[in-house]
């Protein structure tokens, strides 16, 4: 009896790696996120993902590195709202959204959207909509390192 209690976890700690909305400094695994989504439902027949990566140039300038900053809590909350809206607007089964912050090297992953659906059309539409909304509404800012120095993307003359 006493032994069994040792294995009781009435309030298990939530592993941040299983959450479907995340802002994190480390990289993510696309395979792992897709695997988790497949585990949710065998009704999912199509999974569309968008992966944003760090390019080596921007507006004619060579970019050597990037850095992202976010407004904690508000950024996560906005991602959550986008996810909820997508799940009610489109005929889809699951949405995962992950954005990295901090320093990011050229070629590295920045953002991942994964959408699972019974049929592919809805998955494409929802995935495309989610990344559009993320760019428009989530308080995250990008700073690029170019030969002119470190420049916040919307602060260019």
């Amino acid at each position, binding site marked *: 009896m006493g032994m069994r209690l040792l294995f009781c976890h009435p309030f298990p700690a939530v592993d941040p790696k299983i959450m479907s909305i995340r802002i994190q400094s480390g990289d993510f695994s696309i395979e792992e996120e897709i695997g988790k989504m497949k585990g949710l439902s065998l009704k999912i027949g199509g999974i569309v993902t968008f992966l944003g990566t760090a390019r080596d140039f921007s507006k004619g300038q060579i970019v050597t590195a990037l850095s992202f*900053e976010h*407004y904690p809590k508000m950024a996560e909350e906005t991602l959550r709202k986008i996810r909820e809206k997508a799940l009610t607007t489109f005929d889809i089964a699951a949405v995962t959204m992950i954005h990295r912050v901090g320093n990011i090297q050229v070629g590295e992953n920045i953002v991942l959207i994964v959408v699972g659906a019974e049929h592919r059309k809805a998955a494409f539409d929802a995935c495309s909509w989610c990344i559009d909304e993320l*760019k428009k509404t989530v308080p995250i*800012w990008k700073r690029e390192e170019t030969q002119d120095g470190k420049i*916040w993307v919307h602060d260019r003359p």
Partner: protein
Amino acid sequence: MNHVTIRFFAQLKDRAGADTLSLDIVSEYTLKQLVSHLEETIPNLKGVLSTGNMQTAINQEFVDDETVIKHGDEVAFLPPFSGG
């Protein structure tokens, strides 16, 4: 006395020289009045906070110019987003 926390992000943080300001406001300010006050107090922010493309959130919710600042509020100035 209304105690408010101001948060700056991205280029605003660089201009303000700080990411967070703690402020005690004697009278009841609208957001518009707070912006004027900040632009006068911090010369680097002059004309920047009041531009059309700046958004403001109070306690993580978007607000407009006429919103009245309350004791304990967190006022965040958000330049155009560039995530993704």
